[in-house]
């Protein structure tokens, strides 16, 4: 059975070589974005952690910040560690690329760049992967093609639930925003305004 690798132990390994590069919050290991690649290299090469296999690399848009999520796996010791890194710059989010540590990060980082617009410094071939060059906006960001007046993209609630969660009644549906493929108005980018924080 794959066990969860202790985040505190991982923090100690990272901090032993680069003090202050890692911290643990509610059992999750957070790494400093600037030294991310080096920290993960330390975790990979350490005999205790032995996290040689990059299982998953993705990002989550938390509206105020982006959270990069890495699932690192040790095959021989059979444990997995979830590592996170936060970037709060929404204009030009960037952090070091893992391609020097894991060759398998290559395509996954391109995917994150394509869909979130997060730049990976040091990536040898950072181009859009699924969408074409010049596609306006980054679809997996929460503010992409946001419905006006809506707190946030996504399913607001189930039909039987309370009034404020209910699906909009017919006639109150707001105007559909322009799709990137629609004829664009002059000099305007379609990506919607940044929304308020729901909390």
């Amino acid at each position, binding site marked *: 059975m794959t066990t969860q690798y202790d985040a505190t132990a991982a923090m100690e390994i990272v901090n032993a070589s680069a003090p202050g590069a890692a911290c643990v919050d509610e059992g999750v290991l957070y790494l400093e974005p600037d030294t991310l690649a080096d920290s993960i290299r330390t975790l990979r090469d350490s005999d205790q952690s032995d996290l*040689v296999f990059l299982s998953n690399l993705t990002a989550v848009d938390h509206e105020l910040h982006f959270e990069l999520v890495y699932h690192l796996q040790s*095959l021989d010791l059979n444990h997995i560690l979830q590592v996170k890194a936060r970037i709060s710059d929404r204009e030009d989010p960037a952090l070091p690329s893992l391609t020097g540590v894991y060759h398998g990060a290559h395509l996954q980082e391109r995917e994150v760049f394509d869909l979130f617009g997060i730049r990976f410094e040091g990536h040898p071939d950072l181009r859009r992967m699924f969408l074409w060059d010049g596609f306006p906006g980054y679809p997996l960001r929460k503010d992409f093609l946001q419905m006006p007046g809506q707190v946030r993209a996504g399913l607001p609630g189930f039909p039987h639930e309370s009034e404020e969660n209910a699906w909009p009644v017919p006639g109150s549906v707001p105007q559909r925003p322009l799709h990137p493929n629609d004829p664009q108005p002059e000099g305007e980018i379609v990506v919607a305004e940044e929304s308020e924080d729901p909390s």
Partner: protein
Amino acid sequence: MTDLAGLSSVLGTWYDFRDLNNLQRLITEWIADWGPDWLASIITGVLGALGILGVIGPTLLILIWVERKVIARFQQRYGPNRVGPKGLLQPVADAVKLILKEQLAPRAADKLIFFLPPVLIFIPGVLIWGVLPFGPRMSVADLNVGVLFLLAVSGTAVLVIFMAGWSSNNKYALLGAMRAVAMSISYEVPMVLALLTLVVFSGTMSINGIVQWQQQEDVIFILLFPLSAIAFFFAASAELNRTPADISEAESEIVAGYHTEYSGMRFGLFYAVELGNTLVVSAFIATFFLGGWWLWGLDQWVPSWIILLAKTGAVYFLLIWTRGTLPRLRVDQLMGFCWKALVPATLLFVVVAFVQRTLLISEGWDTTVALPIMAVFNIALSLGAIMLFARVARPAPLRRPARIRMAGADIGGLRAAREVAARREEPQLQVGGD
């Protein structure tokens, strides 16, 4: 080897269907009554050509059906079974569909050179039929250098293929054409050498002469020179672009090779010629190595052309069989096989044929005794050569067996991999290797 004893029983009348040549003789004599000699030879020649063309067309339609049915049976399918009885009219429907389809040409294609090949490719495809002997006196042109004619004409097809590939202005087509040229040039060498063996041994370049030699000596050449026959079969299937040597139109690599850009009936013509060539090559393999229209006296009772057709069908089935069973070789492997295996093997048997022929003539050996001995010797030599090749020329990765082990309780990364690999127990699966 002139007037054959067996043929005295042929009636010699025009309705004797065992030898359709009588019909030609009748026409010639009838024209000679009132016209000049040259007119007679022209008219009979034209009639023969029309006869061949009239036979090829329907035969091709049936062949498409046969090939699709047989391949379907190999693949556990039914094959065409909707149009007409047993799906027999499916090729007709396909042909009609191809004729009605739009003829596309790439905008950047070299138009004239692009339009010519589907027509030109028919010329060698039809000309070859002219020298095929359907019976002792049944061939449109019984040339005394028939073998030479066959090789010369079949060699010109590659020029047309290169025209098609080059003018399409398509990279797949160009790659396919280049592969076809490289392969055609290479595989013509073992083909020529295999035929040279027969020419040397039988002492004639006439195709009918080679058949008559086999009849006279009561032996078919595949028994005397089995390796040459195998080499010729493989080289011919390579020239025909059929698996395992269909690299010039390898579907999974270069889509359709040189005829990628051809649509409608232009593609249909390429396809038809390819099938026709397959049939005629099967007929020539049957003629050279299986005794052609002759079959140990049976040709006295059954029309000779039916015997030839039966043998052709057998060879054709073999070609379909290899196509339905084998994967394709890579370009370098195919070239390597030609130059490293087929050419030395066929060359060896040219030398053997020279020596044995010289012995037969100078020593005056009795052929009824000498030929079986030579056949046994040659078969043994062929087997030895094949085994030697299989041992010596095997590429390095193939000499080690491929092994599958079971991980058992060792699950993990590199450390577990080393532990599994270090186990002494027998692997679960072991294939290949020396």
